[in-house]
């Protein structure tokens, strides 16, 4: 298959490219820009006039709920949602049922992803057996099966000693350790940020120190062990500053933030809105602003969806009894583009944080459209308004607090390996 994308404004931050060009795709690769390779006769032609072509988005954290919770979502349903939102690669945390702690689960996920719409699905392996936090997982076997790193997801470790051992073991297999900086004993049974809103609502609070104390310990162990650590879903300004300092000091650490943390605060919980129940919790306006700054300055280098689809019943209960999480694949790009509208980031820097930066964290050769790279890309019409609502939502999980928000920018095409896996029917 030979494909030509014509009249495109190609924005590829990894190459430093932002210009109008033609993109020539052959088989699964970008083979040339600007000038056609010799004898290139396209079988398909996409006119991208007035639209933007960017590398396909790489999402560091998206739960597919398969295996184990298929009543919430499946790999098939969620990769369709991802494709519609311009996401071409996504990474699943290991907290499925059973957890991804052996090659069997990795193979199952890989197989289901192959049968689905074409979005690349990668799994993280469990750091400990069954995510129990007590015994190391067979990381070498997991690596051979194809995991991109290991993670304890949202489960506690039995001790700091075991975390140290796990990090050492992962380091000797050159596996990145993906850790949520959450001290579960300080987290206690909290469900909102510990602050004035939580106090008024009488909801048990999660103190800032639940994040900073855990982070301090992880950074110390990273320095001690030399393990490469990726810090998942920061929620406080102080944590972002600690990460910035650690990076200046040369520690091999990176960090991401969930897109919703850059827009919502604990005020959004003020009417017991269970759609805003997330872990880590939505924090203060000051934290939101500090996270935005850390994203702009680069200490937090990736923005992810932290997609957690739920069935309706999971959110239909008194606030503390609901399951945390937001169905977020379809708002990752809209929220990222809104950061540009609100002056937080340039368009190129915003796109970098959802493409080449997360690709680098995962060690994947995606997130750029330089010739010789895989043709994973999406075409975006930046002028089309988009308002998510039940009628145009694709994910099986409808638990989004962003229904009714007015965004600008719509993905019209998504390609994985040169194949069109999503094409918006013009309405």
């Amino acid at each position, binding site marked *: 298959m030979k494909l030509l994308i014509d009249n495109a404004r190609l924005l590829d931050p990894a190459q430093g490219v932002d210009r109008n060009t033609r993109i020539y795709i052959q088989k699964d690769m970008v083979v040339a820009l600007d000038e056609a390779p010799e004898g290139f006769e396209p079988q398909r032609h996409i006119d991208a006039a007035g639209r933007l072509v960017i590398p396909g988005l790489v999402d560091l954290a998206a739960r597919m709920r398969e295996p184990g919770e298929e009543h919430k979502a499946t790999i098939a349903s969620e990769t369709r949602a991802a494709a519609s939102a311009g996401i071409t690669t996504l990474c699943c945390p290991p907290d499925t049922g059973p957890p991804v702690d052996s090659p069997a689960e990795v193979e199952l996920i890989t197989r289901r992803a192959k049968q689905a719409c074409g979005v690349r699905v990668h799994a993280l392996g469990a750091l400990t057996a069954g995510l129990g936090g007590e015994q190391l997982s067979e990381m070498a076997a997991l690596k051979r099966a194809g995991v991109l790193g290991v993670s304890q997801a949202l489960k506690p470790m039995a001790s700091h000693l075991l975390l140290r051992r796990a990090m050492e073991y992962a380091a000797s297999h050159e596996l990145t350790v993906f850790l949520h900086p959450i001290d579960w004993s300080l987290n206690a049974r909290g469900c909102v940020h510990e602050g004035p809103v939580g106090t008024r609502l009488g*909801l048990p609070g999660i103190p800032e120190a639940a994040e900073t104390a855990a982070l301090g310990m992880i950074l110390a162990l990273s320095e001690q062990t030399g393990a490469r650590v990726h810090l998942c879903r920061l929620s406080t300004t102080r944590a972002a500053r600690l990460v910035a300092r650690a990076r200046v000091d040369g520690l091999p650490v990176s960090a991401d933030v969930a897109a919703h943390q850059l827009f919502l605060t604990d005020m959004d919980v003020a009417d017991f809105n269970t759609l805003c129940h997330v872990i880590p919790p939505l924090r203060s306006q000051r934290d939101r602003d500090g996270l935005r700054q850390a994203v702009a300055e680069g200490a937090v280098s990736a923005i992810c969806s932290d997609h957690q689809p739920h069935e309706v019943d999971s959110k239909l*209960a008194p606030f503390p009894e609901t399951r945390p999480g937001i169905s977020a694949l379809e708002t990752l790009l809209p929220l990222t583009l809104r950061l540009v*509208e609100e002056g937080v980031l340039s368009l190129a820097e915003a796109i970098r944080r959802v493409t080449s930066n997360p690709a680098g964290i995962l060690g994947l050769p995606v997130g750029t459209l330089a010739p010789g790279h895989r043709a994973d890309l999406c075409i975006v019409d930046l002028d089309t308004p988009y308002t998510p609502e039940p009628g145009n939502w694709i994910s099986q999980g409808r638990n989004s607090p962003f229904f009714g928000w007015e965004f600008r920018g719509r993905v019209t095409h998504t390609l994985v390996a040169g194949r069109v896996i999503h094409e918006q029917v013009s309405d």
Partner: protein
Amino acid sequence: MSSAADAPRLVSAPGPLPASLQFNEEGRLRHLLSIEGLSRELITEILDTAESFASMNAQSVKKVPLLRGKTVVNLFFEASTRTRTTFELAAKRLSADVLNINISASATVKGESLLDTLRNLEAMYVDMFVVRHEASGAAHFIARHVAPHVSVLNAGDGRHAHPTQALLDMFTIRRHKGDFGALRVAIVGDILHSRVARSQIHALNILNTGEIRVIAPQSLLPAHVESLGVHVYNDIRAGLRDVDVVIMLRLQRERMEAGLLPSEHEFFQLYGLTQERLALAKPKCLVMHPGPANRGVEIDSRVADGPQSVILEQVTYGIAVRMAVMSMIMGGSVNP
């Protein structure tokens, strides 16, 4: 490519605020979920209505036909004898039919969801749910999902709110002290876990109370408690000086197990209300307690049974105040 300037404005997610959820289209009280959002006028109207019921409760015939034909369901997901009994009496004195359902012992243990329980009861054409639940926000959740003909009265949700308790406390204070503007009120003890304290603080603020103090060790105070509009004291001697009303809160044993306090003994040593400490307050300082009191833990028996104590009056007035709220929500006319 569009510029940032003409970008659409950020639109907040939809969903009613607690204040609006409590009222119907005509601005009348439809549910009572929280003191927050009530006006000074409405609280005064509730207290005035309760006055007339209070005098009626002292008579030999204690029943009025205001809510004849109405059905009230006491839906208690958390055990409580005293509160449930006063709600039951209040409803019966208004001639309503009353059903007591103790959920912890029935449906939820069988895996029935809260919403399913509600739908089943609604289908029996009940008019009001009086709800107590261990989760903060439970009453709001139920109010948001009940059928249009059903009202919800919050009888305590988690640490969030216990509005009728706060109203009966305001009723008691008003009877003895009149105007709130000149009063200093101190609330002592486990503020962190107390829905009663939160509702009292809101009510006292709405009624423009002169000064509201909370007295407790830091481990029993919620984060940023001063944002509720109170002055914080860690020392009871400083905190009780010149107050007109002292409200003691119940201290539960679990607090010691959770590492919030070393022992009941030390708590009483530091925060227990004794005659000697009460002497630091104004001479006619009222002593209040939402009950049941732990004698020798938060309050000395001589104070609990002393001349300044209005603890039993609070129980008595609880019935009148609950009658007032029920009749205002369900009945057309509010005067008995």
